[in-house]
């Protein structure tokens, strides 16, 4: 009986997981004007591009999409570089009290975002950073550093110390050792960390709705939320089309770099 039960169970799960995805696609395809007020279970026409265009232009997802792309790429890169340097200092270099530095930087991931919000809001209002792209980029970079640091540090401890020793004896400077030895050897790990932090920044909602307001500054998830609140005027097909567009970058990254993604997770899981 084992095999049949197992197959049935897996098939049932797959169907359960596919139904929402199927509804998402089918209803995002439905022409907004013909939407009858109830979820459609069959394809009612192909109006995806029109719905996407409405969400993109009218609801302003497009502006936020570009802004979020900027945040995710720049902050992901900055965070990975800064975190790799810090990991290098803590793991390889003779910094005093490496455990203290580790916890200082890593503590950033432990606390819930809520703990930083109110003072950040005050800080940003005082420094004229509220509702600016620079302001969001700063906080996203800072927010992405701790976990990237955690991932990279874990991988760096697996590199053999003889490498550094040999380079030191040859008279290489720290900068040279970092760029010529550690960065090339850690390429996969750094890539995994970048993908992780890109996804985290891209998916952020809370910082976005707290620290920004204008459409061209707001990250894309905040724009999607705004669109969702305007439900009655635009209709579900447009909202679901919006949900589809904002999922494309992470979905693509996941499908293309599945190996790196999983390595990133397992590195943190060890």
């Amino acid at each position, binding site marked *: 009986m084992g095999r049949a039960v197992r197959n049935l*169970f897996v098939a049932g*799960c*797959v169907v359960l*997981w*596919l139904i*929402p995805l199927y*509804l998402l696609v089918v209803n995002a395809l439905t022409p907004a004007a013909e939407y009858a007020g*109830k*979820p459609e*279970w069959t394809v009612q026409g192909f109006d995806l591009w029109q719905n996407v265009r409405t969400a993109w232009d009218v609801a302003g997802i497009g502006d936020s999409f570009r802004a979020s792309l900027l945040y995710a790429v720049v902050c992901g890169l900055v965070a990975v570089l*800064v975190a790799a*340097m*810090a990991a290098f*200092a803590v793991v*390889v*270099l*003779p*910094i005093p009290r490496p455990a203290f530095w580790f*916890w*200082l*930087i890593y503590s950033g991931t432990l606390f*819930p975002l*809520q*703990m*930083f*919000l*109110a*003072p950040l*809001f005050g*800080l940003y209002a005082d420094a004229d950073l509220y509702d600016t792209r620079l302001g969001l980029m700063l*906080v996203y970079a*800072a*927010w992405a*550093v*701790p976990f990237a640091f955690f991932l990279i540090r874990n991988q760096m401890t*697996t*590199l*053999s*110390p003889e490498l550094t020793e040999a380079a*030191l*004896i040859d008279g290489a400077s*720290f900068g040279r050792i970092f760029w010529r030895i550690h960065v090339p*050897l850690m390429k*996969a790990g750094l890539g995994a960390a970048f993908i992780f932090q890109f996804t985290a920044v891209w*998916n952020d*909602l809370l910082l976005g709705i707290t620290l920004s307001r204008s459409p061209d500054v707001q990250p894309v*998830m905040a724009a999607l939320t705004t669109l*969702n609140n305007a439900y009655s005027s635009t209709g579900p097909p447009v909202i*679901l089309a919006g*949900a589809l567009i904002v*999922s494309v970058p*992470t*979905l693509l990254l996941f*499908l293309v770099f599945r*190996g790196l993604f*999983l390595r990133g*997770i*397992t590195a*943190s*899981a060890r």
Partner: protein
Amino acid sequence: MTGTATPAHGATKPVRIRRRVPARTPHQAAKAGGGRLGGPLAALPWALPAFALVGVLLVYPFFRSVYGSFFEDNGFTSSFTGLDNYARLADDPIFGRSVLNTLMWVAGTLLLPVLAGLLIAVATHRMRFGGVAQLIIVLPFAISGAATAVLWNFMLTSDGAVNQMLRGVGLDGWTQTWLLEWPQNTLAMIVASTWQATGLNVVLFAIGLRAIPRETVEAAELDGASGWRMFRHITLPGLRAVTVVVVGMAIVNSLKAFDMIWILTKGGPSRSSETLALSMYRETFRLFHVGYGSAIALVLSVIVVASSWMYLRRQMPDTGTGKS
């Protein structure tokens, strides 16, 4: 794809052992020859950018928030009130409901995605098309929380897809106004986040299953173990390490749950589905009770940090926290 210096997958054991045997760490290696390069302070510039970003934008606001929780602050004026905000928490019925909802989230997101993940991973292990099934279940994990919430909002509204489905199979009595009444709004949202979160656990458990040595399984088969006994005595113990991680991540993530609730119910109706994460946001940014909001955030932080610290203590013995 593995970096050249990383040990091969099979070599995880020796790495573990190295931690216990007093061998040289990379750190000590640099110490040996580091004197020529300017001593301990030469390493500081490398850590400084990270310290500056994290310090100014995360650590400082954290302590500012702790400090602010002792004040009655409406965004314009503030006055020191000591522990009043915390005393108010005890009497606030919304805070009580909020704690209850947070506990439901923790329990729900521990039970459902972890159990479902385990079952699906075991069922799809070494199965034909098992990889495809896993991929389908992982897909929602790649979608953001906000997009998932938007989709489930569409499913859970009163004339949404879930109620349609129930009517379709003749279970009219089961139809609900899912998001309008407590406790089913919280339960429905837990199910929605299970849909999203299970995939990650499936992947982690699948990695764990692949790490169980084939010989162990074969030896157990020779001894006549199969089905439940195999699962109980071979599979589960083999997955222990992964389970610790999965559970640890689930606890932290469920405590921080925000996107799903904010988009689906905004904590409503009449704040019935608020969790601590949401209560803080509403008190601070909607009601301008900044000090009170900070107090809630601190309570949440203490819970999150306490649980993740206990988890990390087991996970990372080499950072010096496990010993003392």
